[in-house]
């Protein structure tokens, strides 16, 4: 770690303050809000995949779970503070249980991918088939394919009438992202984060050192899910409707693509990847010349082939080259291993 913790925090605060101030002049805050939320979602996978070595094909499951938890709790409670907390807790607990099952079973790599994918599919299929009136949680109808509209959106804690909406909501989301980013920074600098990095590198060795690898991976997985859950709750507030497509494989795929394009093993990469690609998708919606899916796919293929480390490390390298600062190049091996977890 080249920078000290204090430098890191200061840099983060200054850059993010600038961005939060400047960006609304370029892009509408409503669109910006969702880019920020996707950034958080990207960060959640970037953390567990890039730093924890856990390849999760079902990050969307936690995103959807957070959004649905928020919607259901908000309908039943009518005030947004507790639902927000639940939306973080429920996915985290779910991930902890799922993670414990997988990691104590010593599942790795592709098998991990299959299980997370299958669990996402199960959730999707279940939620998608809850249109009947018998699927009710408290006062909330699950609604199946059509989802749940019309729930209480974010309010000033304690005052259900004071909605946080429009521009203020953008600032809430942006600040939430900065806080999550700083927490992730802190986590990675802590012993827990450094041990997690060690586990990513070599599980057997970390086990032989006496670390309970399965427990630590489970915790890491749950933290990632908690962040995804928070992003889900914010997304529910933004769209004012939750639908099963939040759980879909397509959504999971997008998160993975964000991480690859942005750069694994970096904190900022997945955020940039998420915001950039989501904005691209938004722009492409205003043209009909080339199919959108085609472009997304092409980007993914080209990145895997030609820039497998992603944008963030490439930009950093470019920056160093231009400004002539010599620093030890990140080891190629490190990046590749990160991917293979």
């Amino acid at each position, binding site marked *: 770690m080249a920078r000290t913790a204090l430098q890191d925090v200061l840099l983060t605060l200054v850059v993010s303050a600038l961005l939060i101030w400047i960006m609304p002049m370029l892009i509408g805050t409503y669109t910006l809000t969702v880019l920020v939320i996707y950034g958080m979602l990207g960060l959640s996978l970037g953390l567990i995949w890039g730093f924890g070595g856990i*390849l999760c094909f079902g990050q969307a499951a936690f995103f959807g779970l957070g959004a649905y938890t928020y919607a259901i709790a908000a309908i039943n409670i009518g005030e947004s503070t507790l639902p927000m907390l639940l939306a973080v807790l429920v996915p985290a607990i779910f991930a902890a249980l799922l993670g414990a*099952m*997988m990691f104590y*079973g*010593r*599942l790795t*790599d*592709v*098998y991990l*991918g*299959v*299980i997370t*994918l*299958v*669990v996402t*599919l*199960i959730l999707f*299929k*279940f939620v998608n*088939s809850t249109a009947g009136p018998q699927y009710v949680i408290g006062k909330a109808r699950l609604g199946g394919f059509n989802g749940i509209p019309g729930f209480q959106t974010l309010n000033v804690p304690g005052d259900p009438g004071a909605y946080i909406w429009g521009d203020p909501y953008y600032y809430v989301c942006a600040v939430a992202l900065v806080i999550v980013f700083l927490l992730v920074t802190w986590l990675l600098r802590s012993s827990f984060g450094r041990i997690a990095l060690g586990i990513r590198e070599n599980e057997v060795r970390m086990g032989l050192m006496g670390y309970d690898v399965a427990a630590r991976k489970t915790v890491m997985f749950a933290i990632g899910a908690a962040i995804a859950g928070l992003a889900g709750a914010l997304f529910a507030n933004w769209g004012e409707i939750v639908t099963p497509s939040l759980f879909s*494989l*397509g959504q999971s*795929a997008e998160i*993975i*693509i964000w991480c*690859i394009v942005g750069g694994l093993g970096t904190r900022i990469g997945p955020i940039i990847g998420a915001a950039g690609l989501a904005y691209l998708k938004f722009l492409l919606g205003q043209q009909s010349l*080339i*199919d*959108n*899916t*085609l*472009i*997304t*796919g*092409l*980007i*993914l*293929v*080209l990145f*895997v*082939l030609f820039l*497998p480390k992603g944008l963030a490390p490439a930009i950093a390298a470019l920056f160093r080259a231009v400004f002539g600062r010599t620093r030890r190049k990140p080891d190629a091996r490190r990046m*590749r291993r990160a*991917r*293979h*977890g």
Partner: protein
Amino acid sequence: MDLTFVIIVETLYAVASLVLISAGLAVVFGMMKVINLAHGEFMMMGGYVTITAVGLGVNVFVAMLVIAPLVVGLIGLVVERLVIRHLYGRLVDTMLATWGLSLVFIGLATMIFGNTTTGISTPITGFAVGNYQINGYNFFIIVVSIVLVIGIYAVLRGTRAGLIARGAMQRSDMAAALGYSPDRIYMATFFCGSALSGLAGAVLAPLVGLVPTSGGAYIAKAFITVIAGGPALIAGLVSSATSFGVVSQVFTFAISPVFGEVALLVLAVILLRAMPQGITGRLFKGKL
């Protein structure tokens, strides 16, 4: 009694279609340790090739059994040369690249064929069993799957190419040591795998409405079947397709198709948790 027969046929059909949709993926995974996530789109393309060929006046069986596998196999060959070749040995990277390819194919198909559902009618008529009408085409699919499995077995056991392939499956460096270029083996394997995917898509096309995103419905199932099957190609494919097919049909008939699908997925989680290396990683060791 008639209903029992119908249920048996439907179950056999479920198993057969799982074998069919997983075969291409299994061949590529078994030989090359590459998971081709564009597999579903290869099937989708097989379907479109068939429909296009039939539209041009080709006999439907020729279109399904010859043209579709050939065309999709060739597309596979191009994909292998352009993309997969650069990523051998990097399991996760190939998964991501083929995932990207699947999106590219969906996009291309959308631009060419549009999102409107298309299809051809089944070339075999239904017939009656007691009070029940059965889809005659189901038998065709069952037969194709059986022939396919026997065919793969015969090729692996009885031909020189099969011997090399088995060698490559065990130890990828062995074929090289024997003087065969692994590059060419991989090319051939990927061609065969893609052709099988194309065949599966073509054969299933008359039963479903085809849209560019049709592949998505297959890939998850095929992926699960192959991984749960484990390292042995044929034994793994057949054993996992049988377990999944039977379980999902039992739940489908007892409750509903949704429960059938969910039962399949839950079984997959249990299987992989209990046998992290797949069924043939624990049982049937050393079989093909």
